[in-house]
């Protein structure tokens, strides 16, 4: 809950950070993989050994899973300068209402590395007047703040403020969501991730919620182990156990398995996902098979030489025999 967006360190597709999750985040994962495996294509270099922040323990595997959508989507990205980028997106859908989103991304001057610069301001506005905005800034070296605001029409829905400090081999962060001093309500989360050896890192999360006469706290522990070309991560709390395994086959095949057990409702889901990067055909395919008898597939094909991308997505549930398909087109 405190990890809405889940972006610890923004990465750049071709110069600018990606828009918030409302728009299409398809460019992001490919670029991050390129950054993470820039040493050699088959092994994982130091970037992902440790630590990436507690919320990103399962990121590699979750990024493999396809993000399906329904209906017809058109996304136009326009870079106005090397710092500023604007995107328009139209989503026609019969399941949810059709919508038009306008988003803007600004990246500031403080450049840490070729792929990271701060501050980053990302905003997204809906045709129903829903606003989604994020500011990420690095105040001093190692100390980053993140502020996320969501409004629905003119009503505040969620405000989240986070601070994280990256030391030499650890990451500590504090995040609060919807803090309301007057009503005495809010959620506070503390994360800490420490790298024990170069391959193993362990961490903990403490989530405290107060408000409306209700008070509760959740402690969860997690760890990640990085092998030569695989990563295994696990997080466990009183409510939820989540284990993932990520494997790089060769430079075009990556696979991952994700086990999610909900201890409250006693339900578990296993999903197997893989990504095929067919360079020859400029195509990326992400597929996943579920233990709920659901198969999901997302295909992205770059129509070179123009900067167009065609996206096809499909979900098929064998048990209920329901399917949903989507077509998307990305310009720029």
């Amino acid at each position: 809950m405190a990890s809405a967006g889940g972006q610890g360190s923004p990465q750049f597709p071709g110069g600018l950070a990606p828009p918030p999750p409302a728009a299409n985040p398809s460019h992001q994962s490919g670029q991050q993989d390129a950054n993470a495996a820039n040493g050699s294509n088959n092994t994982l270099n130091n970037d992902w050994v440790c630590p990436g922040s507690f919320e990103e323990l399962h990121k590699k595997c979750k990024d493999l899973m396809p993000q399906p959508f329904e209906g017809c989507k058109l996304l136009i990205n326009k870079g106005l300068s090397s710092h500023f980028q604007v995107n328009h997106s139209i989503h026609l859908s019969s399941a949810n209402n059709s919508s038009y989103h306008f988003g803007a991304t600004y990246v500031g001057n403080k450049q840490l590395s070729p792929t990271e610069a701060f501050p980053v301001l990302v905003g997204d506005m809906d045709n129903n007047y829903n606003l989604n905005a994020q500011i990420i800034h690095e105040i001093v070296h190692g100390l980053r703040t993140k502020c996320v605001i969501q409004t629905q029409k003119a009503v505040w829905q969620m405000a989240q403020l986070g601070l994280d400090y990256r030391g030499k081999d650890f990451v500590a962060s504090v995040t609060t969501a919807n803090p309301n001093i007057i009503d005495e309500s809010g959620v506070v989360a503390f994360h800490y991730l420490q790298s024990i050896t170069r391959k193993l890192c362990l961490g903990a999360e403490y989530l405290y919620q107060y408000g409306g006469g209700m008070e509760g706290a959740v402690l969860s522990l997690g760890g990640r182990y990085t092998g030569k070309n695989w990563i295994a991560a696990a997080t466990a709390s009183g409510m939820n156990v989540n284990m993932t395994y990520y494997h790089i086959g060769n430079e075009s095949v990556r696979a991952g398995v994700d086990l999610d057990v909900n201890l409250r409702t006693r339900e578990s889901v296993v999903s197997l996902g893989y990504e095929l990067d067919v360079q020859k055909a400029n195509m990326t395919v992400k597929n996943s098979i579920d233990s709920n008898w659901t198969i999901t597939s997302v295909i992205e094909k770059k129509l070179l030489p123009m900067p167009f991308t065609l996206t096809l997505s499909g979900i098929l549930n064998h048990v209920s025999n329901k399917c949903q398909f989507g077509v998307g087109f990305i310009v720029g």
Partner: protein
Amino acid sequence: MVSFISESETDDQNHSITEEEDEFIEETIGERLWGLTDMFPEIVQNSISVIATFSMRGGKNVIWFTSKAIWITSTSFMMLVLPVMLEIERVTVEEQQLQQQRQILLGPNAAASGYGPSTQGLGALPSMPGPQPKS
């Protein structure tokens, strides 16, 4: 024709029906054939009935399972594997066509070594198509 009288009938009135009378108890063909099963002993009847029921049910289950399995594997194959296969094949055929075109234009040497002018120098003529002497 002799009509058989069921032994279990105890109604007095039925005793008046003698074997000589021409009254038949109406029986369908199915009932007559079913009656023939009485010639087998109990155990044989029971076991044959059990075997027949099981094989009917088993056959239905096998057909149901096979049809479901075929449907699930074929739709999953169509969604997961087919687009990749078709696209790779299309790109391969396109590459081959390009290579053929290059071969026609510039000669088989250019096609084998990739593309671009011949490596002999600026003034060299492109090689003629046809068998080339091995150098």
